[in-house]
């Protein structure tokens, strides 16, 4: 059973964030994303916001599984999330050693356009209000401000 807590263990998590630990199984990854997106719908986020969160979630989870946990079948990912009508915060922490986001080549340069990998970070940053990595880089915070909340 996934662990669930309503306190926050990371000082950057919002108060009352829900914290869960999931494995790499596709079903639990989709189910948790659906929970977050359902809560966004209840809080009045527009369809485009939910599209954005699902995309950023997929990219962050993929990075956690492949680059962080190196595809270990027993790898786990800690997710902390909180949604209110103003902001959605999702923290994703893997078990890896982290990385330097600045070391990722710009995939939009002409010479990198036909490289099949390296676009996840670009998409996270494009679709979220803010993307913050905690050193050493194995924790990413996806932060999305609800455009429908009127600031």
């Amino acid at each position, binding site marked *: 059973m996934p662990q669930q807590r309503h306190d926050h263990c990371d000082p950057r998590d919002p108060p009352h964030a829900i914290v869960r630990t999931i494995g790499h199984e596709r079903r639990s990854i989709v189910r948790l994303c659906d929970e977050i997106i359902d809560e966004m719908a209840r809080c009045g986020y527009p369809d485009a916001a939910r599209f954005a969160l699902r995309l950023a979630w997929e990219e962050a989870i*993929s990075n956690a599984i492949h680059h962080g946990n190196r595809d270990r079948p027993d790898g786990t990912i800690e997710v902390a999330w909180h949604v209110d009508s103003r902001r959605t915060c999702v923290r994703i922490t893997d078990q890896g050693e982290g990385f330097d986001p600045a070391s990722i080549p710009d995939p939009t340069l002409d010479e990198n356009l*036909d490289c099949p990998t390296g676009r996840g970070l*670009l998409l996270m940053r494009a679709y979220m209000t803010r993307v913050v990595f905690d050193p050493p880089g194995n924790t990413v915070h996806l932060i999305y401000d609800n455009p429908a909340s009127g600031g």
Partner: protein
Amino acid sequence: MTAQQSRLRIRRQDQITIVEFVDRNILDEANIAQIGEEIGAIVNDDPNPKLLISFANVDHLSSAALGALITINSRIKGKDGQLRLADINNQIIEVFRITRLDRLFQIHPGTREALASFT
């Protein structure tokens, strides 16, 4: 061992192979790998591949799906073939613009325009 269910709907029109996706969300990396293999087999079997990929049913895709498309594009170019993308909704076309992949791929609004663009 059970046969995998295809993730694609495939039909031929003249010399062109038209591919549509079964899934609305192209996010699961196992499915993306299967899609890459299925389209790769089409490209391998055709000495002069002309492929149209329609996104008519697709609501979401990830960077892994973009990666699979780039690999397919490279293989088709390697055989002097042609690849066209069509029927991409506004949210997903934005993903292509952000990644600048709208410059790598020939993207058409609809299947009819895409079919007419093959030479």
